[in-house]
């Protein structure tokens, strides 16, 4: 089978959105778009990456991202190995670099890594000979999430430039937020962040966003509202006093959403805390919720990443 797009991708790794150009992002999204229909076909299996080895190295628990990367690799014909922290030598005290060197000696073609420390994929990329894809590093970035969000938005709004996107919730700890802020800024969208003062970095404005502490103000005339997950350990008095107070001020419900544009669409990277950051009535409303579509776009975007990163080493 031939490539969907003959464009070259000038990066060896996909470590973060911040270092991509608008053209890079367009390329990734265009290639991903082609994989959407291919993933909907009966025969989903291709041979593009036949003979290649993809290792998913997950130091943090994940179901949807790992499954999504696994499916993406398999649909492109790669041999996919999953290594999760529970069963790996990491538990026995091996350092990240030693793990990387061990895996590197097995000659993989792509390493997909998720790690609880910001910058872990960057360290890995310096030490291995293959492509590295960041599947989420600490509170830093989750680039494929931002790309799948962008593809989802583009499907519905036809563009990214000029849209008003409100990202709501725990910005402080969120890698999804950082990747989305970077991507949306590169593509010319207007980015707002909304959350309690305890969950927004005090110098957030330097990220190129408008900062709001009220949903009513932050959601006004928004085209897209992205909700973020609030981790359980942050709910009970440390960063916010209680679930009910958080939901009262920052949980997305019909009333808070009413100030947004009539054609507003809702997104959430999952897994959702219903009744904490989002009301079920909104999450399940197929007219405005893009949450399931985000998951579908995730596979296509990851196929595009694997495809584009594999082109470099063929030449």
């Amino acid at each position, binding site marked *: 089978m031939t490539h969907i797009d003959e464009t070259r991708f000038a990066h060896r790794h996909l470590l973060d959105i911040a270092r991509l150009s608008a053209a890079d992002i367009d390329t990734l999204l265009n290639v991903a778009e082609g994989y959407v229909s291919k993933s909907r076909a009966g025969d989903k299996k291709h041979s593009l990456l036949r003979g290649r080895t993809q290792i998913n190295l997950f130091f943090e628990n994940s179901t949807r991202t790992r499954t999504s990367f696994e499916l993406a690799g398999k649909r492109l014909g790669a041999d996919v190995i999953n290594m999760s922290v529970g069963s790996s030598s990491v538990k026995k005290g091996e350092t990240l670099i030693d793990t990387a060197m061990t895996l590197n000696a097995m000659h993989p073609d792509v390493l997909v890594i998720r790690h609880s420390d910001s910058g872990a994929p960057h360290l890995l990329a310096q030490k291995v000979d293959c492509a590295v894809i960041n599947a989420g590093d600490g509170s830093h970035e989750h680039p494929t999430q931002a790309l799948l969000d962008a593809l989802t938005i583009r499907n519905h709004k036809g563009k990214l430039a000029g849209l008003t996107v409100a990202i709501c919730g725990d910005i402080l700890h969120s890698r999804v937020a950082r990747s989305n802020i970077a991507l949306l800024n590169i593509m010319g969208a207007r980015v707002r962040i909304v959350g309690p*003062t305890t969950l927004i970095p005090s110098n957030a404005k330097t990220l190129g966003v408008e900062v709001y502490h009220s949903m009513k103000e932050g959601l006004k005339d928004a085209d897209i509202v992205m909700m973020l997950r609030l981790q359980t350990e942050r709910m009970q008095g440390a960063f916010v006093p209680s679930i009910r107070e958080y939901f009262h001020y920052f949980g997305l419900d019909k009333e808070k959403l009413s100030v947004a544009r009539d054609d507003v669409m809702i997104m959430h990277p999952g897994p959702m805390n219903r009744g904490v950051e989002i009301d079920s009535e909104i999450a399940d409303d197929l007219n405005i919720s893009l949450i399931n579509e985000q998951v579908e776009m995730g596979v296509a975007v990851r196929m595009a990443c694997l495809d584009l990163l594999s082109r470099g080493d063929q030449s």
Partner: protein
Amino acid sequence: MSNKKHAIVNVRLLDPATDTDTVGGVLIEAGKILDWGEHIKADEMPEGCEIEDGGGHCLIPGLVDAHAYLCEPGKEHRETMQTAGLAAAAGGITTINAFPATEPVIDDPSLVEMVRRRAAVSCPVNIAITGALTKGLQGLEMAELGLLSEAGVVAFSDGQYAINDINLMRRALAYSTMFEKPIIVHAEEPYLAGSGMMTGGRTATFMGLKSIPAAAEAILVERDIRLVAMTGARWHAAHLSTADALNSIRRAKDQQINVTAGTAPHYHALNDLEVGEYRTFARVSPPLRTEEDRMAVVAAIADGTIDVISSQHLPQSADSKRLPFAQAKPGVIGLETMLPVSLRLYHNEQIGLLSLLRSMTVAPAKLLGLDAGSLAPGKSADICLFDLNKPWKVDGSNLLSKSKNTAFDGHLLQGRVLKTWVQGNPVFEYKD
């Protein structure tokens, strides 16, 4: 309340909000101030207007006490909203800011509603409510500041406890900025304070009592000033007592950092010698300080470093005071004596009368966001008439508070409240 017009004439009008000190009167209708000034005289009042002669005494806006413990709900054997209200009225106080150290602690919006309802039926003066800063005043988890705020609290505080966890304090300050209400702190570094009960110094050493260094106050104040500078929150030190901490506040104010400070009458009127023969009624938290620190408190009131004087009224039953000093509970009652004790500063020519009154009227009203503490037309007729010079001797057993733990028993004071009105209705009248 009566809808009839009612004038109080022949009084010395003192209104700190407008810097007014003049002879005149106040005209009241339907519980509100209709008019006030030099032109309110007995012979110029409309027909049917009830006229009361103030005998040339001082008429001021009712005092706002920014810091008191009412003990209800849960500790009614020490004080109730009713007895506290009667004591307050006798002290010229028309609004009490009730602290949340009750049982249960006021850390839930439904309790705010309950206290408000209870106060409306049983307390003769107005009650403002301060909500807990942390759940159960435990200093571990932030309370629901937003929901408490919507329920009507005017400030957040953990009362007698300082927040030990600096990260929690930082987040609580940051979080509170969304609701624009002040956090009122007990400024005492908890580890340094430990189980101490006297200020560090000669007296404590001589008496063999565990001491708390004066620096414990400055350390916490300095810590919090830096957090306030980071977060932009509103922060108020409930009752400062040391020269060092007051210097820190002075510097912070010079740097435009958003802090205010308060003190209580016992810190400007008494020093650690008051403990004398292990008098537990002189045990307070923070402890009474040395004479140098007391003089620094007086100077800070005079130069405006201290914005607010509040009673720090903390009723304790006799059995929790009739104990060895180390076992006795800290705290003194103060609603009835706040004004007359503070008038000492005026009689000693340490501060002007209007400046002194400002610290118990407009300043606390501004701190708590209350529409009180001034005489403007349209305001609720919460006012107080007092005799500036009348001498009297405090007898603890005659005070109206349910608990009698005053630190001023036997003290000679000059100045006495004659009458207090809330919404135009008399709630206290002095009888010889």
